[in-house]
């Protein structure tokens, strides 16, 4: 319908034009500050740009060849998968448990809710500092408790006769610590998303199953979990994005150490691109993440859509 057909139709009524006007600012902004830098980053990954020499020279896939030759890259890639997979499983499982607690009614719920949300609402750099102190190599109160329980220090103690565990100093423990802190931080978000899913389940479904004699676990596995699955998938997707792209926990806690045992792709990209000044290689490492992330996101979103339709 054109303006000529209906002369009195004002601009504010023309949906097509209005849609563009409403969208344009966001589209323009995202193109300018996401799409353009993205293309620039792809360009960087194919160039020899460094912090010292910002002139752009085409080098083709040399940067990718160089990072593939570096064993630290493969270690970071393995760490990223280990870190993401273990974290995601734990975040979704603990998130479900926590969501079950948060939907129930009990005394002092507001306090529990407040405390439980703290890990997520606190800026990650600060909570990581809190953990850095909690896992301190000498003054860790966890070590103190283990010593008091006789599990650590002294002859024949089960966890060794040293006085400390060195949580962030031993490769295996450092990875476990980084994962634990990450799970601790993101479980509340996943719980909140799942509460949303649980609240949305029609009550009569659960009651119908109860009347039919289904016990708690059966209701859990045959009613609640299938219905929560789309929302849980979204929670997992959000968590995976945060896990893949956020390196603040690794950076503050271990800085990738000891000996690259906790190095993930993002922190390795930062290390090469900023600390090492090799912008081209940094961009190539960071870019390596993107197809993986994209494939995972599309797969999850499609799965959610399909579950919705049924």
């Amino acid at each position: 319908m054109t303006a000529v057909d209906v002369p009195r139709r004002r601009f504010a009524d023309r949906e097509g034009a209005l849609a563009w006007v409403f969208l344009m600012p966001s589209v323009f902004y995202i193109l300018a500050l996401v799409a353009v830098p993205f293309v620039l980053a792809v360009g960087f990954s194919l160039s020899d740009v460094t912090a010292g020499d910002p002139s752009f020279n085409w080098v083709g896939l040399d940067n990718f060849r160089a990072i593939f030759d570096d064993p630290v890259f493969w270690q970071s890639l393995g760490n990223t998968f280990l870190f993401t997979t273990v974290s995601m499983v734990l975040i979704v499982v603990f998130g479900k448990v926590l969501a079950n607690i948060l939907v129930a009614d009990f005394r002092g719920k507001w306090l529990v809710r407040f405390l439980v949300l703290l890990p997520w609402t606190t800026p990650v750099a600060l909570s990581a500092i809190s953990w850095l102190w909690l896992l301190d190599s000498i003054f860790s109160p966890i070590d103190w408790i283990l010593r008091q329980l006789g599990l650590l220090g002294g002859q024949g103690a089960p966890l060794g006769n040293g006085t400390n565990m060195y949580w962030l100093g031993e490769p295996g423990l450092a990875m476990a610590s980084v994962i634990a802190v990450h799970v601790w931080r993101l479980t509340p978000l996943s719980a909140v998303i799942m509460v949303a899913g649980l609240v949305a389940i029609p009550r009569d479904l659960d009651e119908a199953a109860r009347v039919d004699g289904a016990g708690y676990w059966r209701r859990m596995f045959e009613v609640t979990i299938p219905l929560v699955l789309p929302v849980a998938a979204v929670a997992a997707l959000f968590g995976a994005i945060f896990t893949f792209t956020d390196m603040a926990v690794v950076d503050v806690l271990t800085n990738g150490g000891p000996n690259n045992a906790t190095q993930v792709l993002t922190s390795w990209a930062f290390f090469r691109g900023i600390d090492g000044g090799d912008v081209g290689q940094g961009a190539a490492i960071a870019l390596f993440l993107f197809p993986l992330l994209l494939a995972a996101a599309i797969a999850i979103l499609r799965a959610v859509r399909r579950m919705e339709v049924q």
Partner: protein
Amino acid sequence: MSEAERRGVWTEERSDEGRRRTGRVAERQPAVSYHLRHVLARIGLYIGATIAALIAAAPFLWSAITAFKQNRDLYNPANNPFLFNRPATSDHVTYLFDNTAFKYFAWNTLWVGVLVVLITLLLGLPAAYALARLERPWAGWFGVAIFLVYLVPPSLLFLSLSRIVVAMGLQDNTWSLVLIYPTITVPVSIWLLIGFLKAIPRDIEEQAMVDGYSRLGAFWRAVVPLTFPGIVAVVVFAFTLTASEFIYALSFVSPTTEKVISTGVPTELVRGDVFFWQSLQAATVVVAVPIAIVFNLFLDRFIAGFTQGAVKG
């Protein structure tokens, strides 16, 4: 119940038609055990809630204790770390406020957060409305594309973005964060708001337009007020994301008084290998508690937003 009746029920149980009554009998018998199970479930709930709260809060409790300790108490591994073996002191907390740039960090985080939230709503709300309601054939694809923007990691963009920031003359200026942060908040906010807008009945706009408002007027007068819960969810989410952001703040801004909390505290309060542990921990608690309180106030709206945004989006 007489003996005969009971026997009657039991015989009926064998026949197929008796299935429904069996259920009734089964329910009547274990009344005590049902009560017991209920009590056990309640106890389990309280235990679970307590454990969850303790695990979530443990680092902060430890921070809160640490912040008030004297050095001689803190740096003695033989002391019980959970008790004050020497009198508590507030020196390190006052040091944080009087002798460090923490005031500047907090103020910068606050005003950057408020401006970013405003920009996010200004850009995101109309865009979400266009995608949710204005019936364009490309709206579905566009929504997914905007969500995918959220997947582009900051670690990929910060190198080129810092070039752009320099080109605009904003390097080492907190305003650079106001410019860049909406790249994180706008896509996810549009996605959340689409869900909220779809949940509002179309009749409301149609009624407003029948009453003489233009489409634009209907959006502004009728739809926006009803989207208020979604707007609150976006405000809280965007502010939290902004306050937590680390990589951009680290690479764009280096003067002390221009920094925000998330970079200022870890970089400025640590001198080489010397950590001002008490002041650092005080900073953590001082920042964590207010944000969590605000978040709690709006949690229910946030939850509502997430269901609609995530599931119907």
